[in-house]
């Protein structure tokens, strides 16, 4: 090796090393994220065309159709009706779930609670129950002839309007624990000095919660809200699992259910790919719109 090469290496090395270290991540990203997304886009622009009866060899071929599938997906009223249903369901889940999570986190953090450790685990535990199992469990509680709830007050929990509340209940039951834990951990990280100072100034526990804890929790609340928005947009498990038990949930109740139906029930992968891209675009827009609206509040201090 020549001396010039030796002198050049110190300058060359730092520009190469980061790429080497990044390679595994980039390869994994390309293989398991970029490639599938690319394939989805590719599928979304294609469609099978059959000729005549469509039986036998060569009767069916795949053709390029450009944006036809997207146009069909966007103009499908069922998709937007699904969005409306999910919007109502999501608003319900978001408000109740995050409200309860905040309430529980504040209660657990206040000094006076007994059995704090037990309560924390008890509230968190439903999150550990898989979604399908949780929905089935609640589904059995909802079924008219099996339900112990029906014995107390007579409401059809799987009726046309009540079914949304019933599903929201499952999501809230499963989601409160996780969100509470996020908020609670943030609360524990707040230096205790603030509370002491507030108490010396004569603030009550309620005032401390409202004036100090909640403002300091805002970034964490925003984080949990974004997670919850994304999760509700993707709602699938609850309606899909409850569907066989009632005739009030259609196969296109939520946008993702429509994707599933297109891909795996009616065997139209191309429409499913197009619809899933539309859904992804909408959820990205919604999440970023929310972040933009609250950006100043959340990251203002930085």
């Amino acid at each position, binding site marked *: 090796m020549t001396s010039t090469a030796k002198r050049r290496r110190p300058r060359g090395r730092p520009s190469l090393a980061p790429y080497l270290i990044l390679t595994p991540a980039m390869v*994994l990203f390309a293989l398991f994220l970029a490639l599938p997304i690319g394939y989805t886009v590719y599928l979304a622009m294609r469609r099978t065309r*059959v000729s005549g009866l*469509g*039986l036998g060899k060569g009767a069916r071929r795949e053709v390029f159709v450009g944006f036809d599938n997207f146009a069909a997906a966007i103009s499908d009223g069922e998709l937007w009706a699904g969005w409306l249903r999910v919007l109502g369901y999501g608003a319900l889940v978001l408000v109740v779930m995050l409200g309860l999570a905040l309430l529980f986190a504040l209660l657990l953090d206040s000094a006076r609670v007994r059995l704090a450790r037990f309560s924390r685990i008890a509230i968190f535990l439903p999150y550990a129950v898989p979604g399908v199992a949780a929905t089935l469990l609640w589904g059995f509680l909802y*079924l008219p002839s099996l339900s112990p709830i029906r014995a107390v007050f007579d409401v059809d929990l799987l009726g046309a309007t009540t079914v949304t509340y019933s599903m929201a209940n499952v999501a809230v039951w499963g989601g409160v624990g996780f969100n509470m834990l996020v908020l609670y951990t943030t609360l524990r990280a707040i230096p205790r000095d603030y509370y002491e100072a507030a108490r010396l100034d004569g603030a009550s526990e309620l005032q401390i919660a409202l004036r100090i804890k909640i403002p300091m929790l805002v970034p964490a609340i925003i984080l949990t809200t974004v997670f919850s928005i994304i999760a509700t947009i993707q709602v699938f498990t609850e309606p899909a699992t409850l569907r066989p038990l009632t*005739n009030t949930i259609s196969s296109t109740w939520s946008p993702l259910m429509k994707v599933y139906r297109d891909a*795996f029930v*009616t065997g139209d992968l191309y429409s499913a790919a197009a619809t899933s891209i539309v859904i992804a675009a909408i959820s990205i827009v919604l999440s970023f719109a929310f972040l933009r609206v609250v950006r100043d509040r959340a990251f203002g201090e930085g």
Partner: protein
Amino acid sequence: MRTQRLGAVLAAALTLSTAACGASEPTPEAAPATAPAGPVKLTYWTWAPNMDKIVKVWNEAHPDIQVTVSKQAGGDDAAAKFLTATKAGNPPDLVQAEYQHLPSFIAADAVADLKAETEPVKGEFGEGVWGLVTLGTDAVYAIPQDSGPMMLFYRKDLFDKYGIEVPKTWQEYGEAARTVRKKDPKVYLGTFSSKDPGAFTGLAQQAGAQWWSISGESWKVNVADEPTRKVAAFWDGLVKEGAIDDMPYFTPEWNKALNDGKLLTWPSAVWAPGVLSSNAPKAEGKWAVAPLPQWNAGENYSGFWGGSSVAVASKSPHRAAATQFATWLNTDPAALDLLVKEAAIYPAAAKAQAALGTAPEYFASQPDFWQQAATVSAGARGFTFGPNVSVTYNAFKDGFDKALQNGTPFADAVQGMQDATVADMRKSGFQIAS
């Protein structure tokens, strides 16, 4: 979410690679000197109970063709999975294909034409069932395995208690339904399920429906035909006046109603004893079977609910061996005997009747169960299924769900099935004769 998806893809990749290793691994000890590749290995997707036991008998007798059973969930999911696997390039060699899904397999070019191989066994099957695997064309796309002629299952003890005669016609069925409601408002004669298009299809077939047919190079689609609308209107009337219930089949609630004696009949197929014995174990020995009620007194028609065939994947490299196995499974007397005893199915092959000796345990009080089935089977009529039955069936579920929920006419739901079916076929470019 993202990590989950990544995990799933990783898992799938791993399974693929291990599966590939498994397939390419030679088995040294069993390889005969003449065939360098060793025994042919076949995979078989099925959901018939105890099929692994039946396959074991084959494997022991045929060391050169080894079949591995891969148990499937069954129904529409299994069909979707097979189509997806075909698209992905790794389908099984053999697949259980329900008659209504076979046309979609054929349309996707997923199953092989077995015309030459099946010529010798064609005579083993009735014309009706053979038509379901040929679609009336020259090709043969599968070998029939079982059929599901529909019958009326009823609670004999409770019929006696409420003083009801077994209905001979659907009009009598309606009358009986009203009588039951009067005698005990907690009990229903039956229920209309919006989740089981297969059952409705069978009832429409009984009435003489022909949802699809092939004329020349184009399809005829007539889901909302006269017989189908008649059947829909009949059940519509009974549900609307509250004479029968509207809970779906195969739900915990339905099981409970069967167990508690709150549902007195189930128009179902010959495979019903298996379902009843597992879902309503408490009522063992109390059920009896009769032919379906008829539309006109004196007729003897029935329809089919379920039934499947065994197809060979078009991408299978071992078509001859796979066909040989499928033929043995569905025509060999020993295999048919096993199908009846182990898998508890009603074989499609005509000579299987001999294997059907004693009635199912659940129906011990009805020794002539299989004779009844054979009589009904003779009068059962089906129709050619179209290439997109899954679309039609999905439209059934959504349409009838809505009709039950909003109280709209069943006729609208039937029209919705027709419209969805035609729209989907048009979208794909199928030629449709109006």
